[in-house]
């Protein structure tokens, strides 16, 4: 796909940048990103990626919009309550950028959905089972994965560049068989803008990866909104990880 005159105007602030330019904008146009979870993180992530000119988004969420979502899930409006999130999100994202292609999956993420031709997978889900499934498939297919989460005033991101054989994976640090944590948005609440901070950072990392700038991977980035503090931690490949240790021995 080539830029037309209208698109030159639309993306002019990207085109001015030496490290994006016309080639980078074409690269974004030709990208296909899977976003799993269209809640508090999926909303800001997809809004920024749609506006930025990503060519195609596949969005996956089985839920309907509830009134308790509206303080933080910024794609949805009062009248959307009771409707499928992916349908409401598709309409809102197409309003932002009519050129965007949006595929919707109103079901939990599955191996079939993960078999698509994506350049990048964004984990915006809210449960360990989905995160483990994404990690497993992305590791096996060597697809980059950016996993994010938030609760209360806190959020975190982990980026995995599985094209690098020695990359750690999600399961290296978090045992997928451990009990589901009690600290989710339904039990502990969450501050809406914290999801905006983490979602914006996830979208920034996504663009950097898609443009070939290899955002720092193998890192855990933690944000404490109450203290206004970011802290970075290095993730180590676990030599006993059931999932990824065999790959690293190859």
């Amino acid at each position, binding site marked *: 796909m080539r830029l037309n005159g209208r698109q030159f105007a639309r993306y002019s602030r990207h085109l001015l940048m030496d490290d994006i330019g016309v080639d980078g904008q074409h690269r974004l146009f030709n990208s296909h990103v899977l976003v799993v*979870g269209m*809640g*508090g*993180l*999926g909303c800001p992530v997809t809004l920024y990626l749609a506006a930025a000119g990503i060519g195609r988004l596949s969005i996956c969420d089985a839920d309907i919009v509830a009134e308790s979502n509206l303080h933080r899930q910024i794609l949805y409006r009062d009248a959307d309550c009771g409707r499928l999130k992916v349908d409401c999100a598709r309409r809102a994202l197409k309003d932002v950028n009519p050129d965007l292609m949006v595929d919707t999956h109103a079901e939990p993420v599955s191996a079939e959905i993960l078999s698509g031709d994506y350049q990048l997978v964004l*984990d*915006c*889900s*809210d*449960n*360990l089972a989905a995160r483990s499934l994404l990690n497993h498939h992305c590791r096996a297919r060597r697809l980059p994965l950016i996993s*994010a*989460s*938030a*609760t*209360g*005033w*806190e*959020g*975190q991101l982990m980026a995995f560049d599985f094209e690098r054989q020695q990359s750690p994976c999600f399961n290296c*640090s*978090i*045992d997928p068989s*451990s*009990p*589901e*944590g*009690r*600290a*989710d*948005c*339904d039990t*502990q609440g*969450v501050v809406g803008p914290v999801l905006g901070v983490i979602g914006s950072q996830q979208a920034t990392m996504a663009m950097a990866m898609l443009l070939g700038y290899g955002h720092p991977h193998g890192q*855990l980035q*933690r944000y*404490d909104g*109450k*203290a206004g503090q970011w*802290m*970075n*931690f*290095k*993730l*180590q490949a*676990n030599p006993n990880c059931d999932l990824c240790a065999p790959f690293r021995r190859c």
Partner: protein
Amino acid sequence: MIKLLFFGRLGDSAATAPELFEASEGLTPSAVRYALAIEHPRLVEALLEPQVLVSIDRVIADWNQPLTDGCELAFLPPVTGG
């Protein structure tokens, strides 16, 4: 001595916890966690929650990794929502 850091909401529960912990031979993050939980009841639930992560000198570590004198030990509460 080992410098203790309680990130995010763990910091709220750790208001009365020490900032330093006496280093000893074979000490691990797991042993520090249980010692803190015994001494500081407010920390029990927060520290023993599933999926709490621990880092040593800003590297995510195993709970049984040996600690060295002068290191920083950080506890990170789980964040699972999306």
